[in-house]
């Protein structure tokens, strides 16, 4: 290993996490046809987001002003269904449709979850959107949100660029 490679390796270590936060643990690569199912899940998801008006700036304001139960109901029931499903998958060792064992990762505590989480919360209240709704807002015809998306990509890039200098 030459010096440059060692340096990169060290930088990688400090720039945690280099692993993907939403990992793909499927052993075999996805074929283009295999990817269509994620497009369909995404489309259904986008319709739900839009029809339940979760993508509305006003819903997020109602939530942060504690003036409506709606978003708490959405997030709370989503988590409940998620917990039940994950428990069922674990208990009955349900396999993927390819027959693989489902792999779940434990999240490691880092300071970033507090600092980064707070920063994201500030942005969530301004834009009235978390990353999912940003895409659905654009699809719904609010084309100016493309600027928000480009900024969010830039923000992600800035984090990657300076992550090794940030407390974590």
């Amino acid at each position: 290993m030459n010096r440059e490679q060692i340096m990169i390796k060290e930088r990688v270590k400090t720039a945690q996490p280099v692993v993907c936060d939403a990992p793909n643990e499927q052993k075999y690569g996805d074929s283009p046809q295999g990817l269509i199912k994620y497009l369909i899940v995404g489309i259904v998801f986008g319709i739900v987001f839009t029809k339940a008006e979760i993508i509305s700036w006003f819903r997020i304001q109602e939530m942060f002003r504690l003036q409506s139960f709606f978003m708490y109901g959405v997030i709370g029931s989503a988590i409940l269904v998620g917990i039940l499903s994950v428990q069922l998958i674990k208990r009955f060792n349900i396999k993927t449709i390819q027959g693989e064992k489902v792999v779940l990762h434990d999240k490691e505590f880092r300071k970033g979850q507090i600092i980064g989480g707070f920063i994201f919360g500030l942005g969530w209240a301004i834009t009235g959107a978390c990353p999912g709704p940003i895409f659905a807002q654009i699809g719904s015809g609010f084309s100016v949100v493309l600027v928000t998306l480009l900024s969010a990509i830039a923000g992600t890039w800035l984090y990657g660029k300076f992550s090794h200098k940030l407390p974590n």
Partner: protein
Amino acid sequence: MEQLIETIKQPWPWYVAGPLIGLTVPLLLLLGNKSFGISSSLRHICAACVPAKIPFFTYNWRKETWNLVFVVGILIGGFIATTFFANPEAITVAASTQEDLRALGITNFTQLLPQEIFTWDNLFTGKGLVFFVLGGLLIGFGTRYAGGCTSGHAIMGLSNLQWPSLIATISFMAGGFTMTHLLMPYIMAWVQ
């Protein structure tokens, strides 16, 4: 059939939307061992388009193509819902929220996003700078620093009973409350 479409056009209640969103977690796991998360797509876009030899963006993003396909699907879903199943009525916003927002100068409650802010005309003004540019930067920077967003932490992480995700979710809410109650009045006064 017509009646069904009429029903679909109405805004969906939380007890329909929430469980459907929750079902995304087992669906993605069982369809192909994928962990639910949306903000990661922003990282994959960086890795694919502008990696700039930054270690954080130097990985095999092609393996995560599914995540990019998924967010394109969300965009198409937004288009389908608005084009074919749009609610003909204006959005219902809580009276107390309307009152609070009127005090901040937001009076148009007809669309999903306030028309005083979310238009191209505002792009090169204080509103555009804060609501699109700064807001987007905070979302992108914050989610990656936290290692996930509402989907990756609040829904996927909590579904798997991960306590760091609970801390992240509490931090998201703390940031949102701070912006709404402490900073928003100053921001709205500045951009008017």
